[in-house]
């Protein structure tokens, strides 16, 4: 049973976690939440909008589903796999969702966008051809004050088409 317990040493827990496909040994602070730990270790794409689990800017995909980084104790990511926005694509090689968000004009201030794109990614993983209602439901934890969600919903629809096309070709 000892194997299933990590003890805190000098204020830190040492955890093993795969971030964007790369295995990392991270020292996370006692009392630290995943959002803060990720930002502290350089994944700045994960944003802090409220720190109370209400805005979704800190969403990351943990073990296959989008979660609120500000509500997950960092230590609980131990043995897990995390995808942050940096793991999806880059300016040189964007993920189809990132491209679709840009193309649809869905990025205004952009603060909520990483979280929203990760929620969308999960949606399209499990529901490749979502209805508008399904998109809105999947994004209802990612608050945006700039856009009114119109272009973001359109972006997810467009990305679904792009991804479906890619699937066919492949």
């Amino acid at each position, binding site marked *: *049973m000892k194997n*299933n*317990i*990590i*003890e*805190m040493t000098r204020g830190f*827990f040492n955890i093993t976690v795969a971030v964007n496909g790369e295995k990392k040994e991270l020292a996370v602070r*006692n*009392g*630290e*939440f995943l959002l803060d730990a990720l930002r502290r270790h350089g994944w700045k794409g994960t944003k802090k909008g409220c720190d*109370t*689990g*209400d805005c*979704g800017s800190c*969403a990351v995909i943990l073990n296959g*589903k*989008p*979660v*609120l980084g500000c*509500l*997950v*104790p960092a*230590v*609980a990511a*131990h*043995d897990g796999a995390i995808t942050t926005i940096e793991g999806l694509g880059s300016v040189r090689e964007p993920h189809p969702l990132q491209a679709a968000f840009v193309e649809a004009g869905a990025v205004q201030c952009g603060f909520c966008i990483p979280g929203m794109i990760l*929620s969308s990614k999960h949606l399209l993983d499990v529901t490749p051809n979502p209805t508008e209602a399904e998109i809105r*439901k*999947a*994004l*209802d*934890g*990612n608050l945006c004050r700039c856009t009114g969600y119109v272009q973001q919903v359109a972006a997810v629809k467009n990305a679904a088409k792009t991804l479906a096309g890619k699937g066919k070709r492949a």
Partner: protein
Amino acid sequence: MKNIKYYAFPSTTKEAVALLLNKRYKAMALAGGTLVAKTLPETVETYLDIKNVPIKNIKLQGGNLVIGAGATFNDIDLSKLCRGWAGGVISAAAAKCSSQLIRNMATIGGNVARPHSFNIFPVVLLGLDAKVRLSSRSGARLVDFQDLYSSGLGLRPGLDSLITEIVIPGKTRKWKCEFVKLAKTESSWESYITLFFSAEKKGKGLAQVRVAVGALSPKPFRAPETEKVLLSGAGPVAAATAFAAELDAARAGEYRASAAASLLKRFAGSI
């Protein structure tokens, strides 16, 4: 969180309960953590993560619907079994909990373990005569949800015991049910009131009815007078009047009483 010394992630119920009962660890069990991760009691020194404990399944067992305590709102929302049970009322309720990100994390067990007025499930579980299976020092036991939720039965789930299953009795499978969340907006965390109505027809009359009210306080309650009026076949208007009176007595306030009574009237009219 700042007093945490150990992070434990057992893989069986037995291990988890052993850790809870081991005085050395001062452990608290968490699943989604959406309710308590930010406000962990200072006395807790071990964060007991039940992510690997196999209590997430949703299954049929002995004619009953058994929902693992670790099933998330999203799991329940999407579960075919839940969607097919009592008109899908359990899934419908799960879908109305605040946001998708919360629904991905929060579990039904957490909703049962921590009474809050904004919890979605209690009013539904009360209305469906749910039972809760938990493991404690004295082993596994099955208790009435209502007893556990209202009195605690001397247990502190998460600290001295672990909720493992929610059992929805088979008799409710075909009940006509409705869950209403009356709130400012669809995705509001808080509601003015949540309502659970159910009825089972028998010939021209009703075999049973349930009228349960949530969100007014952490503890949901049934409206016995209203249920009686409904059973008596006095009609929707009489039921609504009785319901308004009961809500009034429960200090629901004019708006809640009036709106909820109207909704009950509609439900009664639709039976």
